[in-house]
């Protein structure tokens, strides 16, 4: 019986799905696969231009001389440009002030939201302390319609594009005005089509190969080809996931304008970077995928700006992946589910905050140019605190989304019967108990519409 079915397949010479890799690889463009034009003194390899040597030589560095990959920096620790460094011309007083204000806003939001979470009003929050320069420097260097795929600590990028405090608060509380997910995704997992910011996904690094796919689609679109790139943010911990390697591989082998920004903040929750990798950080991996790569001081907003701007240009001009590794330090805990003083000394964090503070460095730069003053700083902080608190209070008071939201957007197009059935069942139960059973009565009041839209649907 089975034989009779099996034979035709075999007869037609169909390959069994076993992983027998063919030895000859498909030739594609690129130096690794180009055939050498002329034989060298010691001969040639069939599919590589690798020169042939007669001496035994191992290597373990991408710099050639065994040193670590250098870090690009523009401002020193007191905000003075390094000798030979280029201060970007387009960052004049107005732009610089806007960048600084955006950086200052983040810890003010963090302070409030962290405490609010601790009071039990939010399920979850993640602070940005220490990474303000990486976020705002990169956001400012991108076009606002470049497609961003974040990891979860990129609120600064989204707000740079016009996502408001009200949006941020409504999303965090998952209330009826939540612009990101209509109450269906947890705090800090933002997304906004208007701002070209894809939905944050909790499983780590899935956004990395997806970014290569978004960039693939950009390259296919005549109105965006050569104009936009896909930008993907991830931590040095996420770069240990297979998805990171898959994303890098695909952006280089199926070339697409994908800009990889690694936020190397020193910790993946509790795991320090030196336990995350044994090689020279994330940057060392770029050349392994044939990718232009730079390491930049992530606490220097101007260096991040310059590096990302040039990386973006290369990425779009060549239509290929480019890797930026921003070296920063996560001053805050990983998230509200974490207490980092269990695995690092408080003093270390205090020292980092004092000695290498991205806000202080940029503020000193602004003050040296006469673009900022202590009075303005105090006024800014007071204003932002007030705005953040007002947005918070407003969002907290808004009701939760309508109950029907629970069953919506599971599928696009025609709704399968399972959803209709569940909604109708809930409607029946609400009709029966919603007005008489105290726990439900109380719960229903928290929802916009108090569940009436479900009770009114006819089965």
């Amino acid at each position, binding site marked *: 019986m089975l034989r*009779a079915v099996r034979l035709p397949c075999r007869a037609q010479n169909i390959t*069994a799905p076993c992983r027998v890799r063919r030895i000859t690889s498909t030739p594609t463009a690129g130096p690794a696969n180009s055939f050498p034009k002329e034989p060298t003194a010691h001969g040639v390899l069939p599919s590589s231009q690798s020169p042939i040597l007669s001496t035994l030589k191992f290597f373990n560095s991408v710099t050639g001389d065994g040193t670590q990959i250098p870090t690009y920096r523009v401002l020193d620790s007191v905000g003075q440009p390094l000798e030979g460094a280029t201060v970007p011309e387009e960052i004049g007083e107005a732009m610089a002030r806007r960048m600084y204000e955006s950086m200052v806003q983040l810890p003010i939001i963090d302070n409030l939201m962290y405490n609010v979470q601790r009071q039990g009003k939010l399920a979850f929050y993640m602070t940005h302390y220490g990474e303000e320069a990486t976020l705002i420097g990169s956001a400012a260097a991108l076009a606002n319609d470049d497609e961003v795929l974040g990891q979860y600590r990129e609120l600064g990028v989204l707000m740079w594009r016009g996502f408001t405090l009200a949006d941020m608060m409504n999303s965090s509380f998952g209330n009826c005005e939540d612009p990101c997910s209509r109450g269906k*995704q947890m705090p800090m997992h933002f997304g906004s089509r208007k701002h070209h910011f894809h939905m944050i996904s909790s499983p780590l690094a899935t*956004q990395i*190969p*997806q970014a*290569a796919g978004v960039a693939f689609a950009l390259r296919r679109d005549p109105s965006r080809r050569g104009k936009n790139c896909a930008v993907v943010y991830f931590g040095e911990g996420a770069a240990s996931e297979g998805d990171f390697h898959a994303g890098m591989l695909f952006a280089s082998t199926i070339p697409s304008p994908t800009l990889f920004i690694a936020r190397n903040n020193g910790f993946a929750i509790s795991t320090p970077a030196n336990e995350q990798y044994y090689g020279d950080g994330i940057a060392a991996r770029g050349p392994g995928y044939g990718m232009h790569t730079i390491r930049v001081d992530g606490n220097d907003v101007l260096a991040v700006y310059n590096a990302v701007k040039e990386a973006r240009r290369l990425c779009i001009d060549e239509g290929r992946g480019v890797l930026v590794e921003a070296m920063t330090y996560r001053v805050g805990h990983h998230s509200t589910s974490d207490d980092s003083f269990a695995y690092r000394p408080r003093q270390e964090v205090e020292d980092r905050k004092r000695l290498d503070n991205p806000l202080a460095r940029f503020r000193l730069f602004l003050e040296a140019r006469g673009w900022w003053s202590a009075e303005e700083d105090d006024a800014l902080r007071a204003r932002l605190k007030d705005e953040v608190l007002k947005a918070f209070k407003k969002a907290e008071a808004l009701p939760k989304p309508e109950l029907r939201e629970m069953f919506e957007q599971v599928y696009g197009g025609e709704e*399968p019967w399972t959803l209709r059935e569940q909604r109708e069942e809930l409607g029946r139960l609400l009709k029966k108990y919603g007005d008489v059973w105290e726990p439900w009565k109380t719960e229903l009041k928290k929802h916009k519409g108090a569940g009436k839209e479900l009770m009114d649907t006819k089965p």
Partner: protein
Amino acid sequence: MSTRAALSRFAPAITRARRAPAFAARRAAFVRGYASQSEHTLTVRDALNAALEEEMLRDEKVFIIGEEVARYNGAYKVTKGLMDKFGEKRVVDTPITEMGFAGLATGAAFAGLRPVCEFMTFNFAMQAIDQIVNSAAKTLYMSGGFLTCPIVFRGPNGAAAGVAAQHSQDYAAWYGSIPGLKVVSPWSAEDCKGLLKAAIRDPNPVVFLENEMLYGVSFPMSQEAMSDDFVLPIGKAKIELEGSDVTIVAHSLMVARSLEAAEELAKEGIKAEVINLRSIRPLDIETIKNSVKKTNRLCIVEGSFPAFGVGSEICAQIVESEAFDYLDAPVERITGADVPTPYAINLEARAFPDAPLITKVAKRALYRTN
């Protein structure tokens, strides 16, 4: 459950040769088919290929991505000729990284394209299952509707022949349990063409489970099914054979075996109703319920492990519904043995249901045997 598995092992697997008149028109000994010569016939492979070509012609946004899909025409030649017709931009060969091309395809779908992502087998899609389940299936909901993911994940699923446990698993139940995914498990060439076209046009991620052993099998194609506009609805089962005595529900390859069993049963005057599920999610439970109300007996056949399977789900839904009152016998699940699929050919044959086993169990549901 274990009884089924044990029965399966003892079932005489390779003993039958006689053919009923309905299938007399099967052509050569080695070309197993369901086609009569007067009609259009198409193999499952060609039907899938036609569906892909038609949809790529219809919509610029459709593209195919996977290992060896372009120059090599696909491991099973389903994408044969498509690279020549549409070029490398729309039929994309990739490095061997399932999570990579599934992730790239998912991202491309988020960005508005309509990828058809081919896995060499769904067994290998396990390395990409996070992209399918956590990203493709859930993002529409989690984004409040702003990020759609119109994508098809397709490839052979379930046991093939002689390739052991890591190439032989049926994932219908795995994907079938995920809200946000649609899951299709076609049997005939008509199913494959109509459902693949529907899957490509669907605004949701669709997992399209093919079967290696059916690729070379020919089926009749109606004039309608040969048309470019032929699309079958996802979520609707098909009654392949009407009957009044016992309902046999199956999907994919097991539809063929159930029809063979129905032939055997017919010789004893038993009229079996054979339902080809076509879709796993949404599940067309209405069609099964209506059939059970008519026949009062239900057997569910699948080429999968018994536990937590499609059969278990159908059984549960039936006994929870008003159809329970119509049952005159316990629901029977006929499944693969509850062991990783063995390689040795005789062991493998006995690990999956065949027509004699289905016949025997159907008769037991009718209290005609034990």
